[in-house]
């Protein structure tokens, strides 16, 4: 029971983290029609910035805030210098160009921070276990991730659905020429959206950093997961990304936790312990394949065009 509740919360936490990453990706994808493979690099940069700034300032929170600012600036610079010129080009051009950016970022990180990973230590007040149910304790930091991510999801929803900027973003997604003709500075809007996506990726990276090590290439595996999520959820749909992210986070975590025991019932111990991680990693891709075969547009396609 204890294990089930704990793994369930872990799944929720991982799912929410994936949502932060996927939300930025799906915004950029849905609005600018840009396939940004370098989104995972922004996630990595968020983690590296946080580790560095936290070490400088000696404060986790201050470091995290500075890192968010830094990823925002980095995203805006990236958009204005390179990615802006890719809008309206073929998706294949996007893949190639942003693949180049991944190479660049990985190497730049190796040059600046060295090949060894960094650690981002947590402050003491975030490491205590918190009682959530009678007799069940859960790490405060993971709870904090859940709360922060839910808050961001809510703000994002309100921002996109209830504010003027959000209205412009939605309008830009459905018809970019028209919104330009109505006198809206579409270029600025795009830069803003990209910056927002970059900040969300950075937030996901820096929140994940204390749980895993901060290392080169950390953004690549998770980027593919984020892509899987937006494809399952339907490209451009924040709601779809949210539900798919929770779903994928749960499957991944619960699969890793319980599949080895399940497999041990049918396979020998050694075979089960090597097959289980591979099988649980596969589950997500299997899910995506099934979704695409049954509903080629994703589960919650955004209504556009």
């Amino acid at each position, binding site marked *: 029971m204890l294990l089930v509740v704990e793994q369930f919360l872990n799944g929720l936490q991982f799912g929410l983290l994936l949502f932060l990453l996927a939300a930025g990706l799906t915004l950029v*994808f849905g609005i600018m029609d840009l*396939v940004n*493979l370098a989104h995972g690099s922004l996630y990595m940069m968020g983690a590296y910035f946080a580790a560095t700034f936290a070490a400088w300032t000696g404060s986790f929170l201050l470091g995290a805030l500075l890192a968010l600012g830094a990823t925002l600036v980095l995203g805006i610079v990236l958009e204005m210098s*390179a990615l802006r*010129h*890719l809008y309206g*080009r073929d*998706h*294949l*051009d996007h*893949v*190639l*160009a942003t*693949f*180049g*950016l*991944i*190479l*660049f*970022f*990985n*190497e*730049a990180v*190796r*040059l600046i921070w060295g090949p060894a990973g960094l650690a981002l230590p947590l402050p003491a007040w975030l490491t205590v276990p918190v009682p959530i149910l009678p007799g069940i304790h859960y790490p405060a930091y993971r709870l904090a991730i859940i709360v922060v991510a839910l808050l961001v999801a809510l703000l994002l929803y309100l921002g996109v659905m209830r504010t003027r900027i959000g209205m412009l973003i939605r309008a830009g997604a459905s018809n970019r020429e028209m919104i330009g003709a109505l006198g809206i500075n579409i270029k600025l809007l795009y830069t803003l959206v990209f910056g927002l996506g970059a900040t969300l990726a950075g937030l996901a990276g820096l929140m994940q950093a204390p749980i895993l090590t901060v290392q080169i290439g950390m953004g*690549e595996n998770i980027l*593919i997961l984020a*892509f*899987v999520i937006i*494809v399952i959820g339907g*490209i451009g749909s924040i709601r779809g990304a949210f539900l798919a992210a929770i779903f994928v986070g749960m499957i991944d975590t619960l699969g890793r936790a319980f599949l080895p025991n399940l497999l041990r019932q049918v396979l020998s111990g*050694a*075979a089960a312990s*090597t*097959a289980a*991680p*591979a*099988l649980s*990693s*596969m589950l997500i*891709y*299997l899910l*995506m*394949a099934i979704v*695409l*075969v049954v509903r*080629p*547009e*994703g589960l919650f396609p955004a209504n556009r065009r």
Partner: protein
Amino acid sequence: MKGLSVSKAVTALMLAGLVLLPLYSYLSSNIFILTLFTRIVILALAAASLNLIMGFGGMMSFGHAAYLGIGGYAVGMLAQEGVGSGWIQFPVALAASAIYALVIGALSLRTRGVYFIMITLAFAQMAYYVASGLARYGGDDGLTVYKRSDFSGLINLSNRTQFYYLCLACLFGVIFLIWRIVNSRFGLVVQGLRSNEQRMQAIGFPAKRYQLVCFVISGTMCGLAGALLANNTDFVSPAVMYWTRSGDLMVMVILGGMGTLFGPVMGAVVYLLLEEFLSQITEYWALIMGPLLLLIVLFGRGGIMGMLGRIGRG
């Protein structure tokens, strides 16, 4: 017409270079360059097969590295089980790739556009994780191929020059095949589907069936590259199927010129030589390579072949 001749001249030069390379390697007793080019030729073969569906068929597969792994594992696993004959290993590698392509093609082709890119990627990642889970065949660490495929004395794969020429012959054979396919009725239908699927369907062509056959042919060709690659490195691991490898193949095709016969070969040669060259200048070669790719996308439309064409016309 002049534009055509510039790119043709460069292509001819490159092909002559590839054919004469072992001679240069022998005269300068530079063994390294022969090993390097064996790898280049094999990956050029993989890129050429990707170009068949991507450039001519308009199917953007982001999971082509899976076939490299399947072909490689077919050789590695059979060798592990004591079947060293290439007459068995290579047909099995090709058949396994074809079956895999048939299954994932039938499912993937239900989607299009970005969704197709992503679903092919997902299947390749699945193949990657399956290989990582194969405890008997090394799992994550990969599988060492202790003995290269044995073609009953006809050709010795452990001889560097013979192996190089075998790879080159396979490359030329595949390109010849692609040339025949592209100019056949079947190839014209596939290219028609790239331009306008609805119209082709309205004329009465079963679109998916044509695309699937093309997809399977391409996958089988890439499986051949995988079998050769496992023989070249004497090793196969899940890493050959990782998604960045599929990205590499796409880069080679786009860099060289999508939808041209020799573009992918040119792309593979340039990309891998550039990687080799830059990594000798600096440890941080990717710092230059990354932005270079970006610049190529922004300014060099149509890849190297396209640029050569423009120079000619210029």
